[in-house]
């Protein structure tokens, strides 16, 4: 059992750290640290900086302009960027669509779409979920009927994260009603500017319009935008989901959240002493820290196995469940730590550079919105209930 990093890996870590110190704009890391809202331009700025270095697509092979990192290198990059409070890399084009196009797309599709993802010409969003489907992704009702050189798409997608920024959406659509639900699904690339598309924001309980509904009313999509074969979309969808699950544990986010929490409890006073000296509060932090120490090692074990060629199976379901529970507990403790200042709910304060300053200490303002927002962690990407069923069936063979 060797979980130590090699000298090469250590050197890589140092290189990432140096790069971040030099290139990550303070304005962006301040926003991330305070939990302020990131605008489309913020993400685009950070993507461009990474792309210039060749580090935007860590998981893509070099032939497609990626960094070609293995799982350990990606893990190191992830750890360093989260602890430096860099904006996250928006996953829809890079982590999701890219690998699907590389594996199943035509040469023309690869040549056209992949560079545009890297250069920021397109902002992709995801058209998987439909109203009422929940974690049952194969229950696709949106239809695409062939009409000459086009598909005519009708239906509705939902939970489309950051769809308001996107000019392109990749969709699962139903091209056949025969056979099992999984059998008649196709994978289409659709231009959000096409006539017949309407985007309606869904405000979440943190007050933010992070996700959207997307309506399709006789939208005409050229057949050249079909990825792979008609009716084989479920295969590509599952491949995409597997890729989405790298870094599913969110160790970097958890570490950054814990560091923030520890900073706050040194500043908050309870009964005349720093909150960190309250033995019960300190114990709650310690419990989650200890769980995170173990989970980080489980993550490394899975990462090492991936580098050694073992495909992560239900292990990633375990990481999903434990990782989200830990992050949610850190969010809950952060909300608890800021005390009465968790109550002010001032949306404008989350906007950097506005006149509305935070109510109370600046570190307090994002605690409640982040707590509320991250309740999604255990719901999306296959709810934790679905993950437990997978574990029971795949490992326990129940």
């Amino acid at each position: 059992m060797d979980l130590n990093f090699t000298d090469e890996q250590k050197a890589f870590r140092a290189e990432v750290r140096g790069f971040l110190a030099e290139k990550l704009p303070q304005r962006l890391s301040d926003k991330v640290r305070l939990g302020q809202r990131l605008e489309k331009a913020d993400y685009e700025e950070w993507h461009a900086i990474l792309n210039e270095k060749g580090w935007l697509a860590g998981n893509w092979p070099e032939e497609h302009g990626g960094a070609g990192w293995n799982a350990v290198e990606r893990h190191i990059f992830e750890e360093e960027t989260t602890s430096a409070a860099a904006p996250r890399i928006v996953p829809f084009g890079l982590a999701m669509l890219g690998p699907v196009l590389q594996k199943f797309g035509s040469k023309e599709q690869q040549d056209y779409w992949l560079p545009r993802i890297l250069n920021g010409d397109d902002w992709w969003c995801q058209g998987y979920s439909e109203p009422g489907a929940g974690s049952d992704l194969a229950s696709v009702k949106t239809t695409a009927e062939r009409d000459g050189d086009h598909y005519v798409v009708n239906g509705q997608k939902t939970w489309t994260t950051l769809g308001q920024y996107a000019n392109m959406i990749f969709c699962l659509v139903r091209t056949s009603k025969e056979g099992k639900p999984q059998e008649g699904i196709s994978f289409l690339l659709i231009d959000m500017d096409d006539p017949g598309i309407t985007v309606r924001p869904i405000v979440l309980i943190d007050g933010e319009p992070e996700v959207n509904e997307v309506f399709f009313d006789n939208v005409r999509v050229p057949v050249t935008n079909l990825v792979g074969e008609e009716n084989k979309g479920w295969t590509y969808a599952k491949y995409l989901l597997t890729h989405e699950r790298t870094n599913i544990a969110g160790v970097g986010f958890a570490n950054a959240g814990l560091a923030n929490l520890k900073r706050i409890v040194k500043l908050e006073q309870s009964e005349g002493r720093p909150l960190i000296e309250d033995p019960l509060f300190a114990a709650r932090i310690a419990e989650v820290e200890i769980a995170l120490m173990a989970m980080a090692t489980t993550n490394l074990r899975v990462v090492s196995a991936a580098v050694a060629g073992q495909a992560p199976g239900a292990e990633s379901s375990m990481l999903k469940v434990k990782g989200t529970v830990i992050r949610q507990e850190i969010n809950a403790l952060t909300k608890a730590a800021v005390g009465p200042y968790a109550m002010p709910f001032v949306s404008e304060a989350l906007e950097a550079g506005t006149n509305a300053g935070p109510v109370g200490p600046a570190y307090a303002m994002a605690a409640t919105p982040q707590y509320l927002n991250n309740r999604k962690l255990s719901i999306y990407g296959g709810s934790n209930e679905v993950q437990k069923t997978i574990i029971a069936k795949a490992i326990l063979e129940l």
Partner: protein
Amino acid sequence: MLQDGLRRYLGDAVTPAALKAAEEGEGFSPEIWSGLSEMGVAGALFTEEQGGFGGAGFDLMTVFEELGRAGTSEPMLEVLLAGGLIAALGDETQAALVEQAVEGSVQLALAHGEPGSRYDIERVETRAERGGDGWTSRGARRVVVNGAQADHVVISARSSGGARDRDGISLFVLPKGTAGVEIRDYPLAQGGHAAELVLEGVTLPETALLGAEGQAIGALETAHARATAALCADGLGAMETARRLTGDYLKTRKQFGQPIGKFQALQHRAAEMLIEIEQARSAVINLCGHLEADRETREIHVSATKHLVGKVARLVAEEAIQMHGGIGMTEEYELGRFARRLSMLDHRFGDSTFHLGRFVRLRAA
């Protein structure tokens, strides 16, 4: 009777339009406030001598459980808190404010917490100095619920002693618009508004003093005990609604070909939620039944109940969202409002960890 009437009234009155009016206005619906006043609901919070017709623990439970069940944010808790202090300590002139609050013609607030006092009732650093024929005070008050809307704010300041001495805390009644008070008004996650108050050398006449100089701590504790019972009852009501919504959802929502309520894992979790809500109900009963007990007994129940209800509130809010899935995360679906209300219960009058530690200290004393 009050309970049934109140439930019926709120069931009709708390409409999307009323909630929108509250959100776009000052955090509450003036119509519902009038409606509650017409029903005389605030009267249930005070004894007959004080100008009400109730005032017992179970009266508070009745009123606030229904307000929580409806998820509405009229500042009734502030009437209990500030009005309770005025009723307990005020002279005749001041006592008129309680009558007016019961009628609904004035709104009240209590400005006691300071930016650094967290959940510590005894901690008061803002000082009040006697001078001329009145007092001057300088300092800040944090998260004063209904602080900008209140016609009168009961404010605490230290007239003697050190930051955590029990002796030396005095209360004053400030009318709205008193010079030298800077107010920042903002919305709260649970609904309603609060304000940051900065006193910049406020001058107060001798008549503003509420009760005896430096002797307010006992009344403050009693008022907080009663307000804690009310807040916990409010939480209980919100839990009931969250559970009702979740139960309905489990029965109607289908996934993988059947109602998700047929999945045994969800059945068991729903049952566990129900068991814990019954625990919370019993905890509220315990506190409401001990509000008139000796201080030690009362405060043990304050901490026991606030600990347990805080824990259950978190469980119910999180489990209700989780069992709903995505829809539970959205602002437009009714649950979100209740989940947010429940998630803020811990942040007023002390969270479950704070009260667990306090319970231990009270038991050891």
